[in-house]
């Protein structure tokens, strides 16, 4: 047993140091593409760290959202950035050096950050031997929460109000993006036979996995966010293979799907309030089914929302047939 603990220690230290090294390389690399790829690797190793910390729920969320979808967003943004760069090459992509910040400033910054690290390390090391947090209270009330996975119980019952506001944050991001940009047509390439086949195989499977995660979330690792993220992965895959939401879809049906999760969440609590429950209180006998109902709606909305984030703008119902062939370059059109 001794060697095993030593081995796991060595593993943890290696993982921690690798995380730091990856973060440093991701942030310092000259090439942005390399930086993003390293960041995705960083996210995947973070998921491994979560597993080591006995947090499978977070590991799933991190792998799907933190590494996967964030990575897709970053790469998509970089591609658009570079597409714009081609058309305005004369205005050189040379970034202004941060050189005008003097040596004194750099020295001061490093000194301050070292002070910050020392303060944090000291604070962490001096923390009182661990209070058990809220684990006792959670364990006491878990039967009344309607689910047996304590993380899901916390997210959707004990601290459901946080989750409600968090879904508002997600909606807000979409609103912000829709106000910023219009996507006339996705940057459709010919997907090719292999990608086409892959998507045909994967899409049903992903939807199945998403449903499984949603269902299993009530007693094991999983839940609405992980399920929504897998749904979003499906959406992103479809977008990459050149699938377009039809013109009929991008109007009110899309908007409805975006708000669906929040709307169900609010509606359920309001109806329960009419029957005398307090805000976000689920009667224990119904809690399980109500939470599942909210989670299904939430997962659907989260999936659509995250896909919309990847799309990066307000889809415009345009005649799809005419402009397909020619490549449009939205950022290059503006004369200057």
């Amino acid at each position: 047993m001794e060697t095993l603990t030593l081995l796991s220690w060595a593993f943890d230290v290696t993982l921690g140091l690798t995380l730091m090294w990856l973060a440093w390389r991701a942030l310092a690399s000259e090439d942005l593409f390399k930086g993003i790829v390293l960041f995705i690797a960083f996210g995947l190793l973070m998921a491994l760290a979560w597993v080591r910390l006995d947090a499978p729920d977070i590991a799933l969320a991190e792998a799907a959202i933190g590494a996967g979808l964030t990575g897709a967003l970053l790469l998509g943004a970089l591609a658009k950035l570079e597409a714009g760069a081609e058309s305005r090459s004369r205005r050189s992509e040379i970034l202004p050096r941060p050189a005008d910040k003097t040596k004194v400033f750099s020295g001061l910054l490093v000194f301050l950050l070292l002070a910050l690290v020392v303060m944090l390390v000291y604070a962490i090391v001096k923390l009182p031997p661990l209070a058990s947090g809220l684990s006792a209270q959670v364990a006491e009330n878990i039967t009344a929460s309607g689910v047996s996975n304590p993380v899901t119980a916390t997210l959707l019952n004990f601290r459901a109000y946080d989750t409600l506001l968090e879904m508002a944050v997600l909606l807000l991001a979409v609103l912000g993006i829709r106000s910023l940009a219009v996507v006339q047509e996705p940057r459709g390439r010919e997907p090719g036979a292999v990608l086409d086949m892959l998507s045909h195989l994967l899409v049903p499977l992903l939807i199945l996995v998403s449903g499984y995660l949603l269902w299993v979330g009530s007693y094991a690792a999983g839940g609405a966010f992980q399920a929504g993220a897998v749904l979003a992965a499906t959406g992103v895959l479809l977008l990459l293979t050149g699938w377009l939401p039809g013109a009929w879809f991008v109007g009110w049906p899309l908007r409805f799907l975006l708000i669906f999760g929040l709307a169900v969440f609010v509606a359920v609590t309001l109806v329960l309030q009419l029957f005398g429950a307090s805000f976000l209180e689920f009667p224990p006998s119904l809690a399980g089914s109500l939470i599942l109902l909210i989670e299904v709606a939430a997962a659907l909305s989260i999936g659509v929302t995250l896909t919309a984030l990847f799309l990066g703008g307000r889809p415009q119902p345009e005649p799809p047939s005419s402009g397909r062939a020619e490549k449009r370059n939205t950022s290059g059109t503006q004369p200057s």
Partner: protein
Amino acid sequence: MLAQSFSWQVTVIILPLVAALLCFMLPKWGRWLGLVMAFAITGSVIVLAYQVMNQGALRYAVGGWGAPLGIDLYVDGLSLLMLMVVALVGLVVSVYSMAYFKAGKAVHFWPLWMLLWTAMNALFLSADIFNLYVTLELLGLAAVALVALAGGVDALGAAMRYLLVSLLGSLCYLLGVALLYHSFGTVDIALLAERVESTPAVWAAMALMTVGLLFKTALFPLHFWLPPAHASAPAPVSALLSALVVKASFYILLRLWLEVFSQDSTAAAQLLGVLGAAAVLWGGVQALRQTRLKMLIAYSTVSQIGYLFLVFPLASLMAWQAGLYLLLSHALAKAAMFLAAGNILCFGGHDRIADLDRVAQRLPLSLTAFALAGVSSMGLPFSGGFIGKWMLLDAALQSGQWWWVAVIIVGGLLAAAYIFNVIGHSFTRAEISHEAKPVPAIMEWSALVLALAAVLMGLFASWPLAVMDIGAPFGGGGS
């Protein structure tokens, strides 16, 4: 049963959220829905105020779980006044926005603004530091999206900077939350206040959370993002940001310092006071140097935020009251100023101070609004700003820290200088002639109503002061 479980606190949070969903779902009706909901939200704030004034401070357990496990909502005099000023400014700005935003932008403005309102109401009612983090993020992202609504390089760049600063501030704050949670096993403010003791983790948490919130509140020298963001946003958004959004993070700071970090932090409080004094002077001087009206008003905000931090070293009951009073009157005055500036910009197509070209004769209501708001900002009797400053002076003298008195007086003089600079130019004839566009009357009256409210706060001072005492947020020497 119903009386037990139903709460107007929840209504105040849920109404704007539902409004946001509706405005998004039905964009054609967005403006009218938004306006109707603005009235409804204001109405429920009034009912809540009535309830609080009769029953005292209220605590509400969301989900029925209660503090350490669940999240509590808490309303006392302090949070009630914040809710009320948000409702007043929010309502007037909503009316103003009806006329200001044309169809294209209105579609985006209304849902975003309703989410901003949700965030602010949720923030002022929350008694849970992690929940406050979520509301802070909601607030920050909504504010950034609203700034970016203006389009144009200036606004986009300012929004980008604002977003990064806002995220940085939230993460610092969240790190502090993590340290506090692991020290005391709770994220409820009242429980933290009971359990808190002086450990390195608490000191680190205090430093991190304070710095994070100072970034968001834009206290000198962390104010660099504020002037471009507030100056380049659309006028109603400028008014909301300057009047309300920066005050929200200040409110959290105030709560934490009053309840959680109240023990022996005098050195840190002195530092906040010094930074506040620097902000008053720096903001004032910079405002004097500005050539553009909206930049001037934005720097005036930097300066006025400084006053709020002068109360930390004084830390007496009167000082806290003075700070809150200044906050409220500044919120009203600054919203009025930005709306008036928006009218001038809309009228002449520019806001260069030197070319204001007899605005006094062409937009008399807007200029009156600006002047009245200026009176409050300067602290002339008998405006809201005067009462706040008078109490602050009194508190400074009583605690024997006379040097703050000098800061307050010089700050007032600077304010007078930059306000009169604008008013002077608005009477004279400028060289440049420009085609004038008519400004809807409702936009002029909106600005005037807020400015009048700022002045009237000075005449009816006893009522807000009485409300402040509900639940004794500052009571017992700030514990």
